[in-house]
């Protein structure tokens, strides 16, 4: 195991975060705070409790997930796409480093950033609404699992993308809508039964539901199902990455 290489990639990626602090950390925190002001304080004050918790409190897990999902994808996809774009990927490919180690470095750094960001957003939320986390260990488990899974997904997008447009396309056109429709701001149970069935096809529902359960013990679907779906998505991403490296897809021609 080339631990020096994993460490080099990890620290390189983390250094990029600190260098772009405004864009990486401050900007998501500001936009999440705006959600709290608009949905939590302004609109939320006119909404009754949802499943026993105030609306402002209800949306916290969904908002954290929204940021963690999008940031995991953005960080990981950009992390691997940029060396491809500027050509420095040659060094990674010619180094004595295995695919597993490359993924560990890039995805590890992207997931770390997302987890830090998720916790910062959680702390920010605590300034606006009272928070109580019933199952902190499960909360962290969901946070880490989601960050890792979506960083892997982001890594795949970064490999697949051959232009900045493609890099933006999946997060903008697929992930953000799925997250908004996945119960960030409402309970899927509030939907008419037909739409509820449609909503259950959205994988993000399971992530948000499980994450929200760890806070308030309220869930749209069973927790076991949430964990199972997250794990299934993780396995799908791992299989895809395995295939990418085995075939050299978009890396080695």
């Amino acid at each position, binding site marked *: 195991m080339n631990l*020096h290489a994993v460490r*080099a990639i990890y620290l390189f990626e983390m250094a990029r975060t600190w260098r772009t602090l405004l864009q990486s950390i401050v900007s998501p925190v500001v936009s999440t705070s705006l959600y709290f002001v608009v949905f939590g304080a302004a609109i939320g004050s006119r909404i009754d409790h949802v499943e026993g918790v105030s609306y402002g409190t209800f949306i916290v897990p969904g908002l954290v997930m929204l940021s963690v999902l999008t940031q995991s994808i953005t960080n990981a996809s950009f992390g691997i796409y940029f060396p491809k774009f*500027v050509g*420095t990927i040659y060094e990674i490919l*010619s*180094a*004595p*480093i295995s695919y597993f180690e490359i993924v560990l470095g890039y995805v590890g750094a992207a997931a770390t950033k997302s987890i830090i960001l998720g916790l910062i957003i959680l702390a920010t939320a605590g300034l606006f609404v009272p928070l109580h986390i019933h199952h902190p260990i499960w909360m962290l488990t969901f946070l880490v699992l989601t960050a890792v899974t979506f960083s892997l997904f982001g890594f795949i997008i970064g490999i697949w993308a051959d232009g900045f447009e493609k890099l933006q396309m999946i997060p903008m056109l697929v992930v953000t809508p799925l997250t908004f429709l996945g119960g960030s701001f409402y309970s899927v149970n509030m939907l008419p039964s037909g739409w509820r069935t449609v909503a259950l096809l959205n994988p993000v529902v399971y992530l948000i539901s499980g994450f929200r359960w760890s806070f308030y013990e309220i869930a749209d679907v069973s927790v076991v199902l949430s964990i199972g779906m997250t794990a299934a998505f993780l396995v799908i991403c791992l299989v895809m990455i395995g295939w990418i490296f085995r075939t050299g897809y978009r890396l*080695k021609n």
Partner: protein
Amino acid sequence: MSSIISVANLSKTYGSGFKALKNVNLDIKRGEIFALLGPNGAGKTTLISIICGIANPSEGKVMVGGENIVTSWRKARSLIGLVPQELHTDAFESVWATVSFSRGLFGKPKNPAHIEKVLKDLSLWDKKDNKIITLSGGMKRRVMIAKALSHEPQILFLDEPTAGVDVELRKGMWEVVRGLQQSGVTIILTTHYIEEAEEMADRIGVINKGEIVLVEDKATLMQKLGKKRLTLHLASKLDTLPESLAHYKLDLCDNGATLVYDYDTKGERTGITSLLGDLRNAGVRFSDLDTTQSSLEDIFVDLVRTS
């Protein structure tokens, strides 16, 4: 001298069906400077990319330092430093950070003393804290060499190391390469500048259309294929060549003011003595003469044209 790189029956066919390498066999000796010459698209970069692990071979076997690049890739790759043709750099990193990153990537623990030595050898020490984006093209090229040397490789690939570098810097780069050879590093360079190969290389390989056309010691190559040219500056202009000189294949140039005679140095007879005798008999007088050796460039152009 033992081989440090051994390429056997190597072929590469791209997805488009283009055959970039066709059954290439090549041995690089330990400690030498090997220049790989070839026109654009000949397969130079593909060959280097396969040896370094950037591209997958379609067929054949490559051994680096006795290690198979496919089955023992970790050991093989750790012996190699690569300076690619394009200036690929992390624009916003400092010189020190990017060179240290490369060392880590190749599995070596931190060694600030070594990085310092590399940067000083390449005259980059006073730029160590500068962001790469602020450096000139020549300096960026040296940063890339520093990155390649950061993990103390035994083999250094320089793909067009002096492309776009001015004459002064190019000569500086040659000094660096010679210094590296003296420290025991084997160097493989590809170049468009024949002058560079002529100046630097111990051996020369010519690749064309994916095939190795020739591999030879530079001196032997120059001697074997080198032609000499005798130019005679005539005392008075000639309109036509005298009949008695027809069999010499002479060229009458400069409106009849000079006679040019090409001869082969490896031939048993150069024909110069009899030519000069026949010229005197024909009454052709000359005021001066000079001889020139054909350059590697002429040899290269000849080879590529005929292959």
